[in-house]
């Protein structure tokens, strides 16, 4: 049974005790009123029977107040004083009374407050309460004290309450069967009927006032024993009293002889008791069966749990269970295997013992928000083993809810994905490498194709001419023709020689891996080159504007930079428009790790639609210029690309061209 229900029972017991207090108070008040206003019915209830004495009535009223105060949840000092006063007066009145009974003295206390009314029933001692009444009150004061002082031994109050219960029952029996037990055995003064009822209430009030202690447990127990006690005891008391009374009445009315009545009611009692017992046995059997079924179910559930536990224990994935505040309550052996923490080390700790800086606090907050809202969370952790080694885990964290739907635990199921992750990273690296290799191969292949073209166009062409010329020389008809052919041979060989040298030079650039970059002042380099071109510049009246403040220093092999600048500026002058004076603008711009150099002119320009493809190829010319050889741009591109850079051009025919060169790795 839950704590809630137990509190409920405590409250109910308190309530019963309070009702008892009210009954006591009511009895006392009614009888006091009866004495004060002289109403015989209030004094004795039954006509021609003993009245409750005024002192008894006062004692009941005081007991009622005392019981009420005892059951108050909060007690103040004033209350304590009041309670003690009540007890004191009860004790005073009852103990003096006892003294009178035992030593046969009259102290005058009996009629001190109220003169007895002898017109009702003859009493031996007017105004004096019955001896058992006095004994009960003295004992009740003791019981009150043990309860009030909260003495650990509840048995005293319990025993007294049971004694009170017994005396009241005896007294009720006296009236019921019209016999005088007490008067005949001990004393010759009887209790009034409502005095008996008062003590009945007082005994119940005292039993219930102490809460679930002593005999009351039989009645409040939520076990089958409690159920049977609650069913049997009141019923047996009531039925046996009732049948006894019926038997007696039958005899009095002369329906049957005493012996017959005895036999009849013995059988009746046996029958009734057997029925009651069977009724309860039935209940016991039912309970037992239910308990057995529940036990079997429990065993089944237990077996299931054992199998499931085994599955978790032997599972290759890590399982962690934490309580609501995140403290570990369970880890499986795989957890120990992956993290290095034993179950004992981990239990009671927070899983953040594994934490690294991989996840931000915000990500952790999002995770908590998700699982606290009752949803599953899944993701990847980078965690730290006990020995400090890092590992990766893919995890699913779920809230575990109870029957009421409230989260009680969190369950994390995690898989070590370190190897997978490493393999993944390796695969990515391999792929990247492969890509780089492929790119390199493609570029080498393009270079090879270019080389093949160069060989077939630029070397094979002159070779063909030479072989044809030699044919003609051999077959010449006369000396004149032979001389003519021989003269033609010389420029072809010069051309072949030039082409061959250029080719060798370009191959050297491609393979010149040893060439070191150095920091070169662009201004110095330009000055030297422009100095060498002074004659042309002044002849064409060229205007050369330089703005290199953005990136005044370039990290590049000096030889190449000189060659690049020379070729581009030279081209701008060579392919100037005949209609305008050349204007050349040289700029630099820094972008991240690169410097972009641009050389813009207002010359003839290049028809990019036609020549884009061949722009930087060897022996490709785009203008009918006597000095055009198709080597400058080819060489420039070779030099730029040898250092990982890029070259490109923007141009409008007859408006000018701008060459751009990107120099990489400028932050070294």
């Amino acid at each position, binding site marked *: 049974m839950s704590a809630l229900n137990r509190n409920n029972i405590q409250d109910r017991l308190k309530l019963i005790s309070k009702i008892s207090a009210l009954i006591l108070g009511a009895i006392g008040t009614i009888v006091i009123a009866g004495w004060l206003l002289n109403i015989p019915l209030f004094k004795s209830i039954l006509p021609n029977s003993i009245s409750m004495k005024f002192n008894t009535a006062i004692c009941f009223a005081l007991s009622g107040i005392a019981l009420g105060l005892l059951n108050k949840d909060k007690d103040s000092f004033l209350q304590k004083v009041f309670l003690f006063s009540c007890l004191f007066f009860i004790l005073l009145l009852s103990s003096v009374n006892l003294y009178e009974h035992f030593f046969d003295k009259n102290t005058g206390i009996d009629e001190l407050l109220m003169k007895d009314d002898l017109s009702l029933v003859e009493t031996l001692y007017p105004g004096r309460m019955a001896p058992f009444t006095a004994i009960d009150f003295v004992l009740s004061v003791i019981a009150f004290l043990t309860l009030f002082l909260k003495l650990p031994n509840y048995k005293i109050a319990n025993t007294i309450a049971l004694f009170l219960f017994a005396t009241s029952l005896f007294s009720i029996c006296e009236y019921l069967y019209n016999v005088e037990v007490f008067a005949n055995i001990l004393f010759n003064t009887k209790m009034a009927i409502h005095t008996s009822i008062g003590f009945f209430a007082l005994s119940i009030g005292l039993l219930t006032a102490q809460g679930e202690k002593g005999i009351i447990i039989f009645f409040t127990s939520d076990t089958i024993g409690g159920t049977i006690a609650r069913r049997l005891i009141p019923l047996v008391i009531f039925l046996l009293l009732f049948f006894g009374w019926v038997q007696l009445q039958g005899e009095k009315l002369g329906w049957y002889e005493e012996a017959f009545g005895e036999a009849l009611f013995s059988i009746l009692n046996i029958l009734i008791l057997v029925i009651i017992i069977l009724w309860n046995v039935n209940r016991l059997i039912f309970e037992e069966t239910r308990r057995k079924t529940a036990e079997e179910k429990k065993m089944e559930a237990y077996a299931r749990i054992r199998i499931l536990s085994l599955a978790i224990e032997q599972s290759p994935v890590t399982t962690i269970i934490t309580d609501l505040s995140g403290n570990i309550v369970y880890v499986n052996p795989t957890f120990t295997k992956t993290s290095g923490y034993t179950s004992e080390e981990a239990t009671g700790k927070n899983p953040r013992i594994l934490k690294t800086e991989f996840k931000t606090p915000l990500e952790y907050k999002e995770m908590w928000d998700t699982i606290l809202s009752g949803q599953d969370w899944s993701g990847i952790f980078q965690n730290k083993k006990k020995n400090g080694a890092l590992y990766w885990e893919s995890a699913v964290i779920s809230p575990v809810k109870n029957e009421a739907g409230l989260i009680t635990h969190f369950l994390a199921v995690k898989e070590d994905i370190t190897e997978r992750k490493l393999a993944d990273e390796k695969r990515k690296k391999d792929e990247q490498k492969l890509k780089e290799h492929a790119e390199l191969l493609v570029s080498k292949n393009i270079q090879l194709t270019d080389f093949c073209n160069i060989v077939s*166009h630029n070397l094979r062409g002159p070779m063909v001419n030479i072989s044809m010329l030699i044919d003609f020389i051999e077959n010449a008809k006369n000396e004149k023709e032979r001389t003519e052919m021989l003269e033609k041979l010389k420029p072809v060989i010069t051309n072949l020689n030039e082409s061959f040298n250029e080719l060798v030079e370009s191959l050297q650039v491609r393979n010149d891996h040893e060439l070191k970059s150095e920091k070169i002042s662009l201004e110095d380099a330009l000055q030297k080159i422009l100095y060498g071109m002074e004659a042309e510049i002044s002849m064409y009246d060229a205007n050369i504007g330089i703005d290199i403040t953005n990136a005044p220093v370039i990290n590049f092999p000096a030889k190449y930079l000189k060659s690049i600048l020379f070729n581009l500026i030279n081209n701008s002058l060579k392919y100037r428009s005949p209609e305008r004076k050349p204007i050349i603008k040289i700029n630099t711009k820094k972008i991240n790790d690169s410097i972009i150099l641009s050389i813009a002119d207002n010359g003839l320009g290049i028809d990019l639609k036609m020549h884009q493809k061949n722009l930087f190829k060897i022996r490709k*010319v785009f203008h009918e210029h006597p000095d055009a050889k198709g080597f400058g741009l080819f060489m420039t591109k070779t030099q730029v690309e040898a250092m990982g850079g890029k070259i490109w051009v923007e141009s409008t025919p007859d408006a000018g061209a701008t060459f751009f060169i990107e120099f990489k790795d400028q932050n070294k």
Partner: protein
Amino acid sequence: MEKIKNLALIDDDDTFVFLTKKVIEQTNLVEQIKVFANGRDAINFLKENSGKPDLLPEIILLDLNMPIMDGWQFLEDYIHLKPKMGKKITIYIISSSISPHDIERAKGISEVSDFIIKPVTKEKFISMLNQL
């Protein structure tokens, strides 16, 4: 064998032009040889004379590697010009290139009859004419 009236030689290599002209003249099969130093000059000529079949060449010997406008660019332009031509013109590529890539590319152009690797000898020229 019928004589060819006009033949166009498009090549920038003076020596090669001089020698090839000589070879063709020796065959005595061509009346007139026109020489263009690059594709642009040749295209301009064809455009100007598209309506004059007498001036248009029956055969064009086209070099690939030339300044201003190379052989490939010439072919691109020629494809657009062809329907306006008042005469059937047979084009041979004459190149020093031995690159399989160039040969493949030439085969892909229907206007090109064959890819002839330099030099052009008398025998090669006669067999060319025989295919006409």
